[in-house]
């Protein structure tokens, strides 16, 4: 069973609907018992870095998520859920992220329109990527964001996109997966990516 973490803000239904569509056993929940039993965890969402962390703390899921990620449970962070994996963010300097990955989340270049609210071509850089299996090497994905992470460990990067500058838009590191775009809103390519994550969870 995959738990899509419900931390009460934003529109979190669409990610879970995509898993339902794939046929994966998934639940939208913040229930600690269920999260502990989950074989896969998904942190979706939109919103600010600080506000999301506050919501995770409030729902009691912050420490639990860290514990499960460290225990090796496959984890997929989407958009703000991806950014939460890192230590800090330009967006909310007084908040700390989950910090399971090193690095800061940086504001996009002032040369471009912010947020990036559009489809963009993603350049997959690693042949061994799990998320981008069975996909065009430059799939189009839908983005809505003003910030993007700058991971300290460059080996974790699997894909970038160009938006005024090269932006890290997907990472994979052991059981940790993260994407800056919204696969649940990226049509068939996005569905394939989520299915690849489900296969990883089941496999």
């Amino acid at each position, binding site marked *: 069973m995959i738990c899509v973490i419900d931390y009460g*803000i*934003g*529109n979190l*239904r*669409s990610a879970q*609907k*995509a898993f*339902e*569509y794939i046929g994966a056993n998934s639940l939208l929940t913040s229930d600690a018992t269920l999260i502990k039993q989950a074989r896969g965890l998904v942190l979706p969402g*939109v*919103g*600010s870095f600080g506000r999301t962390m506050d919501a995770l703390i409030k729902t009691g899921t912050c420490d639990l998520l860290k514990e499960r990620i460290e225990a090796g449970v496959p984890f997929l962070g989407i958009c703000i859920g991806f950014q939460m994996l890192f230590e800090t963010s330009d967006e909310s300097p007084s908040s700390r992220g989950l910090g399971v990955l090193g690095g800061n989340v940086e504001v996009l270049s002032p040369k*471009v*329109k*912010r*947020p990036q*609210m*559009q*489809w*963009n*071509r993603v350049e997959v850089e690693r042949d061994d990527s799990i998320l981008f299996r069975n996909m065009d090497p430059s799939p*189009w994905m*839908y983005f*809505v964001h003003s910030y993007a992470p700058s991971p300290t460990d460059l080996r974790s990067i699997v894909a970038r996109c*160009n*938006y005024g500058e090269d932006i890290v838009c997907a990472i994979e590191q052991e059981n940790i997966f993260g994407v800056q775009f*919204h696969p*649940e*809103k*990226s*049509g*068939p390519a*996005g*569905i394939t990516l989520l299915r690849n994550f489900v296969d990883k969870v089941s496999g």
Partner: protein
Amino acid sequence: MKSVRIIPCLDVDNGRVVKGVQFLDLIDAGDPVELASYYDKQGADELVFLDITASSSNRDTLIDVVERVGETLFIPFTVGGGIRTIEDARRLLRSGADKVALNSQAVATPSLITEIADEFGSQCVVVAIDAKRVNTLDGEIGPNTISWQVYVKGGRQATGIDALKWVRECQARGAGEILLTSMDRDGTKSGYDLELTRQVTSAVSLPVIASGGVGTLSDLLEGVVIGGADALLAASIFHYKETSIQQVKSYLLDHSIMVRH
């Protein structure tokens, strides 16, 4: 790189699409979910549903449509029409809409923009602006100056508010995107009001969806090149099958405008 979004707009009345339905021979009689799926297959980048009746009795019908769209369609979609409170917005977003479009109520209660943006994020707050050309506006703008006035209630009621002033206020209050419709051009197929589009895209840093007046492929191109639009909304040309989304995209690509393809 910037890529332009192509957005078909579906007007929904009591759970049915009402614009151009009779011309869509291949599509069943205006079921919004089927039409949405048809446009998705054609390569639409996003969809907009406007509930044009928006009476409270039809609310449940709309919610049902939104839920059904969200179950099968995995591209972003916006729902507008009759959103008066944060609870209306919450219900639509919880049902699966990605964004809500505010129009009359944003003018009546501008704090609603901020309220929804604070709760769900700016990215899901679209402010729809219906603007009409005026030459003078109660002495606020001098003669011989083009300006645009905001209309509400489906274009039936003038507000006396200058469109450029309003769009800046929307941005300041936390809107994430502007859906700009030229009332002068809407339905005329004589092209977007490019001057209006240019002025609005220059006035704010928010993404702007140009709407109202598209008749030809070059109208769409001009919306981007001259108007500076980030996204192009059209209804008639798609509903009446005068062109397909693929045709629009090929044309734009041929003219060096990047689109998802």
